[in-house]
């Protein structure tokens, strides 16, 4: 799992560059909460603590959750989310290896449903913000909720590209005109596309290291490109391009770091293809027709339920057996 953390470093670096170093505070908070929650639970369950802590699976969950929530959210948000992910979604199901759902996505979904306003309050990229926040400003914001004097909330936050696209489309604007807005970059959101690119880089490293199999990211990205491509070809003014979908929101993080969680995912090669493709399909449908700007978490959780079914029906042919 350590290599997974390593593979996230480029993404985090890009994150810091785009949004400022406040994310580091969230990451540290998440790490501490996760380790604490894991320790308490392991002690309660009378399991060897050090051995389980040193496999870093709790830290991976914590980081994924931290990277998925707004970096200027109050400190207790990540703490609550991490505790929920570790205690409820992981340890209460039997700990490492026994959780049917991706703990980070459960944590995310709980936060999104419980605190929808905070969860959608994303900071504007530093280069777009009217008043870029310094590290100390972000620190203060996270721990006390206080903005620097004379700065309005609207001055530091901004709608995410997916959010913006969704609301503008509802106002009957066309995609070509919407994407002219400053929040959009070349591929996805301005700045955001760099983070996504860095995730891609880290993901490729994991593939190369054979930590994750190529099946999941390939199938996810291909399916997302395919479905969005079809819609886009049918009506490019109503639907965003495949490239936009691949490089916005949590697409890349999902492709290489979220659906690749082995515990809650399928194990057969064919099953991995189906699983990833369906996550992409559901996520896309939620993005376009659902009530939330992004639908990765719900798509993953839904497909987690289907894993036993997928595994059972995608058993490969055993040597010397007829199909």
């Amino acid at each position: 799992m350590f290599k997974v953390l390593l593979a996230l470093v480029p993404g985090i670096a890009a994150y810091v560059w785009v949004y400022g170093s406040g994310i580091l505070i969230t990451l540290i908070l998440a790490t501490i909460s996760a380790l604490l929650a894991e320790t308490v639970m392991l002690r309660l369950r009378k399991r060897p603590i050090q051995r389980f802590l040193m496999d870093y699976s709790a830290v991976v969950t914590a980081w994924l959750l931290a990277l998925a929530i707004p970096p200027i959210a109050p400190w207790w948000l990540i703490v609550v989310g991490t505790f929920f992910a570790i205690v409820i979604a992981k340890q209460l199901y039997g700990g490492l290896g026994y959780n049917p759902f991706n703990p980070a996505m459960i944590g995310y979904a709980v936060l999104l449903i419980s605190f929808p306003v905070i969860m959608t309050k994303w900071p504007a990229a530093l280069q777009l913000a009217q008043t870029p926040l310094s590290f100390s400003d972000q620190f203060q914001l996270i721990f006390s909720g206080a903005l620097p004097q004379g700065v309005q909330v609207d001055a530091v936050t901004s709608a995410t590209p997916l959010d913006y696209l969704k609301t503008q489309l509802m106002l009957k604007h066309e995609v070509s005109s919407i994407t002219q807005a400053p929040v959009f970059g070349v591929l996805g959101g301005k700045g955001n596309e760099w983070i996504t690119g860095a995730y891609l880089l880290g993901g490729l490293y994991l593939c190369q290291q054979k930590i994750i199999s190529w099946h999941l990211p390939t199938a996810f990205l291909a399916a997302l490109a395919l479905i969005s491509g079809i819609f886009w070809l049918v009506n490019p003014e109503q639907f965003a391009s495949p490239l936009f979908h691949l490089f916005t929101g949590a697409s890349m993080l999902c492709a290489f770091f979220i659906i690749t969680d082995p515990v809650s995912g399928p194990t057969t090669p064919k099953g991995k293809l189906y699983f990833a493709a369906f996550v992409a399909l559901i996520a896309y449908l939620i993005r376009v027709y659902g009530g939330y700007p992004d639908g990765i978490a719900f798509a993953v959780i839904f497909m987690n339920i289907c894993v036993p079914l997928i595994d059972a029906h995608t058993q490969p042919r055993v040597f010397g057996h007829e199909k």
Partner: protein
Amino acid sequence: MNAIVNLANLFKSAKDIFPFHGGVHPPENKAQSTQLPIGQLPIPEKIVLPLRQHVGNIPKIKVKVGDHVLKGQLIAEAEGSISAAIHASTSGTISAIEDAIIPHPSGLPDRCITITPDGKDQWIKKTPQDWRNAERKSLVDSLRLSGIVGLGGATFPTHIKLRADGKSGVHTLVINAAECEPYITCDDMLMRERADEIVKGITIAQYLLGAENVIIGIEDNKPEAAKAMQATLSEHAEMQIKIVPTLYPSGDARRLVHLVLNTEIPFDKRSTEVGLQVFNVATLVALYRYFELGEPSISRIVSMTGNVQQPQNFEVIFGTPMLHLVKNAGGAKADTSHFIMGGPMMGFNLPSADVPITKAANCIIAASPTLFAPPPPAMPCIRCARCADACPVNLQPQELYWFSKSDNFEKANDYNIFDCIECGACSYVCPSDIPLVQYYRYAKSEIIALDKAKEAADLARERNEFRLARIEREKQERAKKHAERAQAGKSEAAKNESATRQATDNPTIATSADDTKKEAIAAAIERAKALKAAAQNSASAEQTGNPEKSGAAEQKAKIEKPAPLDDAAKKALIALAIERAKAQKAAALANGSEPKNVADAAESVKKEIADIEARRQAVGLSVEAKSTEVLKLNNTDAATDKKALIAAAITRAKAQKAAADLAKQMQLDSQSESTKE
């Protein structure tokens, strides 16, 4: 330079290789034991030959303690079809036949023959065979005496694999020289040094099976062996070497066949069913030695490697104590913790250092904590499926683990756990260090045990059901019999009313006599009825092909058995009656010729009685009735009466006993007759 070109050509032929799924490449560790040529060992101080050295029945001991045996002498012969003979591996005296620890994971002792060598190493008379001009069948039959088993480690008796006798349709021999397990180099060294013997062995196997093609599969980490083999093959155009990539477990027969021929032997078929047979190179050398030199299987090449001073391959005679081998490899280093027999992947930790080298021992590894660190404690399975990627059978080890762990054996079976070859590739790649193969072995043994238990339970249930059905049937028959008997008794009474009327007047003797008669008659009727019913039953059963046919037949036989009793009983009854009559007559005579009881009767009655008497006498029946009346009604009279009565009773008892004996005898006779049938 030339050699390099040759070698390059050799590797070109590796193009048509058909990889199997999965496989792993652990560190080879083969170089250590290939530095020195195959060494010879001095004769050890004792030889311990376990009877259990092969797959199949344990052989039958042909020697006893104190016997002197020569090298190569048969000391235990194959028992049953799958078994192998054992020979004395050097000359000496049989010093013990007892249980000793054998090289088996269980560490349990088993029967062994111990020889104390005389140091002369004197051979029995060797009888090489002119196999080229001999009949195949007799050659294969003679192989039963050779003691040759698969020396690749499987130790399956070789004569079974060659029994095909040319009719098997085996067209291709695959020679297994892959030797994919780390550390093991015995086949490598054998090929380097004795390629000619291997090729001669191949020719013999080819002849015995009538196979046209020969493919020799060698892993690409043994270039010297491949070169040596290639050099010997020059005059054998039908033999082809295929260099396969070094990937564990390419030495598994089914994997190797796939590698060199692109043939997947179906899971439920043997290789011969698809026209293939696979032999290990060491087995072929044993074949060559048996037929051309007349030497039975008494030795093999063993890699002595790992934590010893000088790893080397040795030619070891079977039964050599392992420590003797260790000593000749320079001895084990100080930190040696235990010994492994076989490779690190599929081998097992020897339960004791004091075990002999057997036919299965291709490699002995001295292990130390540095060479083989104890595995860290297992972590939970995270379903990463690396095991599935490594499985050469394309199973889903993570699922099998889950099912095995939760005792969900039915599911494990559904997921083809019995296709698992226990190669250990899954355990090797597991990031959680789970000893997966141990779980599969556990599940397999449990499933086998459950199947056996189920079979036994099914049998028991079947038996019990049959028994209950039989009891029920007998009960019904009995009830029917009773009913019929009651019926018969009534009608009998009605029919013989006149005859019994008198009898009813004198309840003791007459009734008893009458009862006996009645019973006999009723029984006879009953028997006749039952016979008839049984005949009908069995007839209908035969007609309908009823599954109860055998039951009905049995029943019929049962009823038929007492049939001769009918006659016997009748005879006995008649004898009894006669006896009784005589006794009564005697009694009557003692009382006076006239029955006294009629004295008080009215004239008309007297007359009637006299009439009846006359009629009776005319038909010769009177005596009994009359005399009984006399006996009964005049019981007031003298001792003579009593005496007569006693005499009569004794006679009667005798007669009854005689009748019973006779009946018994008859029954026994008829039984023994029926059993004879």
